[in-house]
């Protein structure tokens, strides 16, 4: 591990200043992802600015029925907060499907948004990776790509975003609030993470030095009926092969409104808008869910070891929708 300078920030503006002034400075929150990457030589910051003690951990109700989650809220705290549990069960379930109790106790919401891919080629500097070293090549395309993307990938990078929380946030149309050297701005969730294209080294549209301060969840009354389904080899403590966040507004046997997002399939949490279009207005039954699933994966492309993900994702969508939709009442 390369030597680095460490300091603890007591004020958001100062933290932003310290990081934006230095190209290789980074924020550190819970450290559960960053430290691993530093130990394996993937991240090589010269300076760490610890933001763990900034007063950004609050979870509060917003005037129009939404909820604001501070960026430093622990994953475990956010998961179990009454406002989250009650209004956005899909988010609670997504949080609790991630990692382990110990890690969730350390992991922050901001850090979760910024966690990096689990592609093994990215994780080991002895192998070529465009995300780690632009222009060096993507080892996964021709290598072992069981966990890799089936949607929205490029020849430069087929890595997937590993977060569970973010899949629920994508479905819930969350807004990421950030503070930069020039002030604050809001980033709609869909614009936060990026597809790899020709710049896979850039996971998000956050600029260097910008600090995530909170995530806003808009009011979505029907989110009470929602479900997060995570499919994985091991029953716990593993990232998703595929996951689905499904939020359904059903009445009189029909789907009035729907939100569907997928995890484990793309470089970013994948909002399945084609599926939502099919769902909206249709009968709340398995046939509809199947059509929606087909639509969601219509543009999918598999690699040597991940063909199964396409079928698995479809089935997971059907199951998640059936569970969220309940009896269709």
């Amino acid at each position, binding site marked *: 591990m390369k030597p680095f300078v460490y300091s603890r920030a007591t004020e958001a503006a100062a933290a932003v200043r310290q990081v934006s002034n230095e190209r290789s400075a980074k924020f550190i929150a819970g450290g559960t992802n960053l430290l691993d990457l530093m130990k394996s030589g993937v991240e090589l910051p010269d300076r760490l600015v610890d933001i763990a003690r900034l007063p950004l951990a609050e979870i509060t109700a917003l005037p129009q029925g939404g909820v604001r989650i501070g960026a430093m809220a622990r994953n475990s705290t956010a998961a179990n907060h009454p406002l989250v549990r009650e209004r956005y069960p899909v988010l609670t379930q997504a949080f609790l499907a991630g990692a382990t109790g110990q890690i969730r106790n350390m992991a922050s919401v901001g850090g979760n948004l910024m966690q990096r891919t689990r592609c093994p080629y990215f994780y080991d500097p002895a192998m070529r990776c465009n995300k780690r070293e632009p222009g060096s090549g993507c080892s996964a395309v*021709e*290598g*072992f790509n069981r966990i890799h993307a089936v949607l929205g990938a490029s020849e430069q990078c087929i890595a997937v975003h590993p977060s569970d929380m973010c899949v629920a946030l994508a479905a819930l149309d969350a807004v990421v609030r950030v503070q930069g050297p020039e002030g604050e701005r809001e980033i709609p969730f869909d614009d936060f993470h990026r597809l790899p294209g020709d710049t896979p080294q850039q996971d998000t549209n956050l600029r260097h030095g910008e600090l995530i301060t909170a995530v806003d969840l808009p009011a979505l009354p029907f989110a009470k009926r929602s479900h997060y389904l995570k499919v994985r*080899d*091991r029953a716990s403590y593993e990232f998703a092969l595929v996951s689905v966040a499904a939020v359904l507004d059903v009445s009189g046997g029909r789907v009035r409104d729907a939100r569907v997002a997928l995890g484990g399939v793309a470089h970013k949490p994948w909002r399945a808008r084609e599926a939502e279009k099919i769902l909206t207005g249709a009968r709340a039954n398995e046939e509809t869910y199947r059509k929606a699933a087909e639509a969601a994966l219509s543009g999918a492309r598999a690699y040597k070891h991940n063909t*199964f993900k396409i079928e*698995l994702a479809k089935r*997971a969508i059907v199951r998640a929708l059936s569970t969220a939709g309940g009896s269709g009442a």
Partner: protein
Amino acid sequence: MSNEIGKPLSRLDGRPKVTGAARYTADTPIEGLTYAVFATSTIPHGRVTKLDVSKAEVAPGVLKVLTHLNTPKLKPIQHPPAGQSLMPLQDDRILYEGQPVALVVADTWERARHAADLVRVEYARAPFLMDFTEHLDKAVTVKGFFEPDSKTGDFDRAFNSAPVKLKQNYHLADRHHNAMEPHATIAAWRRGKLDMYDTVQGVFVARTVIAQALGRKPADVRVRSKYLGGGYGCKGFVWPHQILAAVAAREVRRPVKLVLTRAQDYTSHGYQAATEQTVTLAAGRDGQLVALRHESVAPGSMSDDYVEYGAIASRTMYACPALETRHRIVRVNRGPGTPMRAPQEGPSMFGLECAMDELAVVLKMDPVELRLKNYAERDPTKGKPFSSKKLRECYSEGAQRFGWERRNPKPGSMREGHDLIGWGMASALMETYRFPATARVTLERGGTVLIESGTQEIGTGVYTIMPQIAADVLGVAPERVRLVLGDTTLPGAGMTAGSSTTMGVGSAVHDAATKLKQKLTEMAGGPIAPDAYADLLKRRRLEKLSAEGLWKPDGEAGTGESKEWTMYTFGAVFVEVRVDESLRVPRLARCVGVYSAGRIINPKTARSQMTGGMIWGLGQALLEHTELELNYGRYVAKDLANYLVPVNADVPDLEAYFVDEVDEHASPIGAKGIGELGAVGVSAAIANAVYHATGVRVRDLPITVEKLL
């Protein structure tokens, strides 16, 4: 006798372990310690052409950078008991990815690790072989621990005339031990003698090999290992890093601690080699086997001849007049394989017991009935009777406890909600390897008892059962008995491997305790009550009274064979799996194992061995797999995020039972080995249950979702 043997005594070392008082190797406090970290090869085959250590050498805290250019030449060592004869840092050859190319010693571990990252290496790459399944034409026959081939009867004739035939291939994955505790070695030279604390399953074996490599007498080397955070086989043979730590300590003239990183654990001390197995069966319509051939090919290394015997169980398991087994290896650019919990029988029982299940399906016969039909009363290859075998009782008790008679044999016929339910079973088999051992038992002033033996505690319960055995003989409470182990200054004992310790060391302890009791009786001039021991010493003005014990198995050491008997342990495993009808991820829901394994010294520690074995088998069946990176010639990932072992959420109710048995042919205390038996048969039972749930026969492990979609 006070009947301590057979009591479910809780671990005497439980408290120190959970409170942190137990001191593991890397925790040993040593004055003036320095730290060593390897830099390893990133290519699988070739030569080192340029080594730039200039940055590493001047990095803060660095004391020495050893490479093949400046490491003193070592004496050759042999496998076994070395894990490999190839010694890194002796020349520029690279035969596998992960092979050390430099060893950096610094005043802190962090600084050593940083400096190791600064070593720059250039290579001349050579073509490499990785995936043995693509090169089966290069398979060769080598002699490892066992004969590569066996043959009884006339296979072709029996096969050709049989009415029912079956031939299938089975593939088991490469697996790694992944002990919680990484390998750690502390080496300190004191007045020309080497003092080592080492994570080893055999202190004496380590001493022999380390002394040989360094050109010293064994008496110049002392090796200690007090607690082991899991061995599972990877700390059995002696590996290069142990020797190089001693070399480094000599070079810097200070004690050196070397702890391998998790990634280095994947390339530094073996793995369980995958096997490609072919099972050919022929039977009568009544299920009687008439011909059985089991062939296995495994990857081997470029430097050594370790063989995973993926067909060996078929030599023993079923009564069959025409029986052949064959073992080959294909040399690849990886370090050698090594035993891993339930080697040989473990992999081979997967192929055999899946094939038997398939035969039962063809014959429309109950799988248990088919096994009873082919029950071996004597070893079909060696021709000798079993020293003890109560496998029939295992089948019937297991079936009854599991509720097997309620099984609808039709695949996919049992379900609950979204779950398809599958019930499957398999047999378990493990050879009873026996090794000689010695021990000393001492009555101390005050009436406490000390046992000394140079054996090891690798997590199995040795600190508890040895006191139980001595207590049983001497009539004292086990809590009054203390065991000191893991030190080459103690009476000699073998490796803690092959499930042999209770039987071997236990018999030596039993012998020593018996002799001590005789001495006491003689001294007292007649029978003496345990509470009078202390008084007797006092009256005789003795500080203590010791007796030496010894056990030497009749027959060849390291085998389960004597002149008259052949020795194995057995079991029957019944499992329930659940597979979601749509999502198709398999999960274990229930496991019942009943075992015939000789006398059980402590049912509590024994049960935990068996359930631990079952979890080990569950990992083999559904999760564990070290993936090869064929373009780079290495493993894709070398960490516990990508190598999945079962976690608590994967582990359901596990039930383990033993049938009543005492095997006096195997050992004077009637015990046999159990540590590996529990890991055998589970993966086959699970695969058979998955077939029963889904109708899909998966013949390669692990059984992951894509194979069932």
